[in-house]
């Protein structure tokens, strides 16, 4: 039997199930929305991102991500959960990868694997409800309780990350490899293009930006704190004054598409403390 909103609320109130930081706003008619939690991992970035500090989590086109749910759950042995993405994010091109169910007796935070199948970045603010959990009451208590490796999971761990695929754009990579296998003439294409593949439907600016994000880990080794100009898929200029660097780039290459990025682990932020700019942008 699937629990409806008031049954979920009552089960939390009585302690039958635990959902930390429970919010009525996350209650759906027959499910509970889980929010974007404190940690995420992008296959292209190769490191755990503190979403709480960054305040958002961007999943690039073609990238694979792990997202830790904000809520810690505890299910009794007569209840199981199933979860899926909210339709808003499914329509934006995300596809969630998950096991068949959250087992009876599970305790901890769920980690949801997500692939971005769209040609655009998908932006997930911290604490955004992004998937929904359906709770099913079983006919009786199970004899055994979940005791697998994810019991009491509250963070993304190296063990989880090791299980991820190794390619930055898994689906496109798979397709190209299949084409290359079918046609030897495409094998040169596979070898030369695959490692640096950026979706061609992006604008030139977005492509340069994607190159910047791709190169960032490497740039951090020698250019931390500097600005870099990306043009034609390469880092072409470095400097500490963004405006001077942009002027230099425009003088050298003409006024055209470039990306000027700060080589830092943090995203560049600006504060606009006015109610005149509050709209969330897509």
């Amino acid at each position, binding site marked *: 039997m699937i629990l409806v909103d008031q049954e979920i609320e009552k089960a939390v109130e009585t302690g039958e199930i635990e959902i930390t930081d429970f919010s009525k706003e996350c209650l759906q008619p027959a499910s509970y929305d889980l929010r974007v939690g404190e940690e995420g991992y992008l296959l292209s970035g190769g490191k755990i991102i503190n979403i709480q500090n960054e305040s958002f989590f961007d999943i690039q086109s073609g990238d694979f991500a792990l997202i830790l749910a904000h809520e810690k759950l505890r299910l009794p042995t007569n209840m199981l959960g199933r979860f899926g993405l909210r339709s808003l994010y499914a329509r934006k091109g995300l596809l969630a990868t998950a096991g068949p169910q959250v087992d009876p007796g599970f305790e901890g935070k769920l980690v949801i694997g997500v692939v971005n199948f769209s040609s655009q970045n998908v932006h997930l603010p911290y604490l955004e409800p992004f998937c929904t959990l359906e709770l099913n009451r079983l006919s009786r208590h199970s004899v055994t309780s979940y005791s697998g490796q994810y019991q009491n999971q509250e963070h993304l761990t190296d063990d989880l990350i090791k299980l991820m695929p190794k390619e930055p754009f898994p689906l496109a990579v798979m397709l190209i490899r299949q084409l290359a296998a079918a046609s030897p003439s495409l094998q040169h294409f596979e070898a030369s293009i695959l490692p640096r593949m950026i979706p061609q439907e992006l604008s030139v600016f977005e492509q340069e930006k994607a190159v910047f994000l791709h190169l960032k880990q490497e740039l951090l080794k020698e250019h931390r704190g500097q600005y870099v100009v990306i043009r034609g898929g390469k880092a072409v200029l470095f400097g500490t004054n963004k405006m001077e660097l942009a002027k230099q780039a425009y003088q050298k290459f003409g006024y055209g598409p*470039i990306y000027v990025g700060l080589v830092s682990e943090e995203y560049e932020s600006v504060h606009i403390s006015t109610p005149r700019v509050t*709209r969330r942008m897509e």
Partner: protein
Amino acid sequence: MSYQYKNDCNPPAPVLRITIRNMSDNARQIIGDALIDTGADITCLPRVIVRTLGGEPVSTYNVVGIDNAHVGPANSYFLEFEIASIKKLAEVIAIGDELILGRNLINEFIIQLDGPGKITNILKSE
């Protein structure tokens, strides 16, 4: 040079008359009144203005609003500004529906706000 406060705001708001140009094509320009907003780190322009000027994006910022609320990502552009006959190159973000003069440009000028007289005076530029 002096500018009247914008009286259709309640209370009236200090504004500066600005001309914005594409830095590579001075023929593409827009003239308007920009709200002086010391709470804004950076100058903000509506996207339609940036598009009209043919601005090329250069980077993306994470925009944080009141109470550190996340507003969203916004692309930035370098455009030429003319204020009180003084030209300055400045970075702007395309966001919102109004011309908002942020501190990256405000701090280039000595500005006197005469609230009772509802007049903004530009005394000097750095």
